């Protein structure tokens, strides 16, 4: 009796294992699963949504039993309302990366650790920066969907006129080149600006410029802007250049520049010779000003060892609380985050950096020399990102408030350190109030 039971059990295990393995290997091909339709809400619209839908069609080909209904124009507000209303999408993708802390800490985004462990997913296919901005503390509740990297765009025609050959590599060179490239009208107003150092304009933000000085936001769980000499060094450098132009003159010139995401963008229109911008500008220039002779390079840095690195951020994907089919949503997100073919298609279509290290080596992605620079910045181990906090982007706003006063000359130079300490205090108070720090 015992022997027969044991034999039966072994036979059952054998059967299960065999068919289980076979089933795993051929699940996509045989279509042995029950058909499932999942919803995927994301922030893309119009042409870009079409490119996402194309990638999703590739997923359906691989997993024919899963049909994905794609909806665009998702924002954090809409997703919050959907989760609160109990009708969230099965999978969601957000541009607003800085909301991850709130979504993750509240449980509104599901922890993906069990899926990652179950599928033995190798997170090292993503650079460290991506691993940082897709997790909140020790909770990994998002995967990346492409990335944005920031570098320097420079106008080759204006460079040739000024007798300059290559892009600046140090921040001192950047200031010297900026002065050389600047052109003024007869009345002294600015016609062409070499480099606009004013914070708040286009992509000029502490998060994007800080990495040029190797500046870090946090020391453990506390804000450390005053404690990191990089921030003060950046601000002193910036103020010196602002004063050279004249703050009000620069603001007036800035007010006359076109909308950032239009054909009258100041760099595209030749009104600024060098500009800090994301890799996506390559596609805008191709579409709007193909005649523009320009180059791209990593942003100049304060230390030679930092050159080649930059700021990295990107779109995130998550499984919201209340998702009806989280397993299928996971399969979709894993596919979009790691499938090299899908990432290549998305990167070429959206002109964003593909989010895995293997996809950076795909020749088709590396073909455009303007774009290639950003792929290398993305892969640079010294590239950095912003911290994921429960207070969202409040730390950036509080710092930006101070920088506005500083650059306008409304903070005395000797009060810089005290001012930065006060910024830290405000951020730490907000962190405490949010419950992130006890």
């Amino acid at each position: 009796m015992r022997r027969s039971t044991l034999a039966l059990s072994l036979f059952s295990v054998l059967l299960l294992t065999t068919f289980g393995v076979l089933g795993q290997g051929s699940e996509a091909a045989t279509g042995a699963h029950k058909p499932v339709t999942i919803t995927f809400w994301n922030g893309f619209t119009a042409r870009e949504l079409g490119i996402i839908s194309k990638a999703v069609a590739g997923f359906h080909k691989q997993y024919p039993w899963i049909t994905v209904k794609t909806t665009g124009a998702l924002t954090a507000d809409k997703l919050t309302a959907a989760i609160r209303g109990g009708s969230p999408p099965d999978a969601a993708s957000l541009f607003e990366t800085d909301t991850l802390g709130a979504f993750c800490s509240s449980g509104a985004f599901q922890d993906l650790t069990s899926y990652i462990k179950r599928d033995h997913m190798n997170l090292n296919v993503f650079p460290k920066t991506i691993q940082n901005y897709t997790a909140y503390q020790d909770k990994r509740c998002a995967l990346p969907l492409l990335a944005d990297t920031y570098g320097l765009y420079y106008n080759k025609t204006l460079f040739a006129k000024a007798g300059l050959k290559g892009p600046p590599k140090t921040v001192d060179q950047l200031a010297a080149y900026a002065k050389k490239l600047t052109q003024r009208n007869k009345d002294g107003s600015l016609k062409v600006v070499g480099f606009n150092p004013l914070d708040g304009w286009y992509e000029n933000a502490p998060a994007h410029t800080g990495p040029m000085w190797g500046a870090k936001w946090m020391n453990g769980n506390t804000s450390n802007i005053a404690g990191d000499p990089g921030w003060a060094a950046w601000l002193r450098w910036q103020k010196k250049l602002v004063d050279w132009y004249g703050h009000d003159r620069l603001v007036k010139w800035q007010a006359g520049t076109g909308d950032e995401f239009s054909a009258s963008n100041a760099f595209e229109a030749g009104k600024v010779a060098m500009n800090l911008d994301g890799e996506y500008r390559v596609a805008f220039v191709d579409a709007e000003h193909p005649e523009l002779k320009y180059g791209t390079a990593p942003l100049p840095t304060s230390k030679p060892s930092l050159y080649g690195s930059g700021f990295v951020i990107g779109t995130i994907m998550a499984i919201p609380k209340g998702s009806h089919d989280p397993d299928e949503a996971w399969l979709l997100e894993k596919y979009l985050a790691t499938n090299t073919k899908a990432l290549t298609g998305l990167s070429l279509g959206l002109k964003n950096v593909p989010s895995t290290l293997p996809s950076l080596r795909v020749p088709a992605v590396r073909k455009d020399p303007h774009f290639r620079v950003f792929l290398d910045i993305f892969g640079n181990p010294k590239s950095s990102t912003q911290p994921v906090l429960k207070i969202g982007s409040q730390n950036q706003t509080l710092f930006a408030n101070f920088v506005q006063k500083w650059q306008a000359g409304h903070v005395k130079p000797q009060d810089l350190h005290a001012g930065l300490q006060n910024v830290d205090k405000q951020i730490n108070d907000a962190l405490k109030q949010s419950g992130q720090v006890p």
Partner: protein
Amino acid sequence: MTSAPVAGAFAATAVRSRRRAKRKAAWRRRGLVLGLMSPWIVGFTVFFLYPLVTSAYLSLTHYDLLSPPRWVGLANYRFMFENDQLVWPAIKNTLWLMVVYVPAQVLFAFGIALMLTRARRGVGFFRTVFYLPALVPTVAGTLGFVYLLNPATGPVDIALGHLGISGPLWFHSPRWSKPSLTLLGLWGIGNMMIIFLAALIDVPKHLYESASLDGAGPFQRLRWVTVPSISPVILFALVIGVIDSLQYFTQAYVAASIAVGQSASQSAENLGYPENSTLFYPVLLYQQGFRYFNMGYASAMAMVLLVVALVVTLLILRSSRLWVFYQGARR
């Protein structure tokens, strides 16, 4: 012997049944009143009382919209007055609106209405012209003003330049941003102007005639006849203006977002541009509640706003005893 108690019992029953009928009728009346009032009761409960009570409760919790509220007592109020360094600039900016923006709007609307009552030709045309801006959507109007007052390409600064005057930076200067918003507010005084116009037309002519016979000049007629006659309308305009200023949001949000020159996603981080000069109390409340998911704190801010609005309105109403005159009322 027996007829008297029977008659008494009969009378008592009759009284009781009359009372019952009366009570029934009273209940029916109450039911009718309640029935007729029910749309208001439902509206008041659902759209005012419930949100008010919920907001008061949430102000005592830490609530991020996504997880259940956690009781923190008065911590949000303490944070507001002891730690949040943006609250005071926001209060100062909002006070500026109450002290400068609202009186300017009232005076301007009154002035335009007064001129329109004096116009002899093209009255309809001018009334339409001054009223039209009130029909323009707030966002579109604000965008228009940011364009008009652009220090580099705006027609106002270009015209000033031709006159040899270097124009200000308008929405880009912390000193000029609020005056720029005031100009935008003055442009859109159509509704207030129409109310003043109606009140001015309604001032009895014989009062002017009597004043003239007594030797009053135009200024004295304005001071002693026009202003007292329309003082209830001035009170109304002031109260509405103050409540509006306490809820001032759209114009400040749009102007800061456009002037800062960033993409929509980033400009939300620069609300209050430049240098927090357009960070009004409701803008800060929105930022905390909907950008940072800090709804418990935003609710505490809303409760403070409610109390301030009540106190200010009561003060204005109290002071009105001294300067508002109602026709036929004894003072």
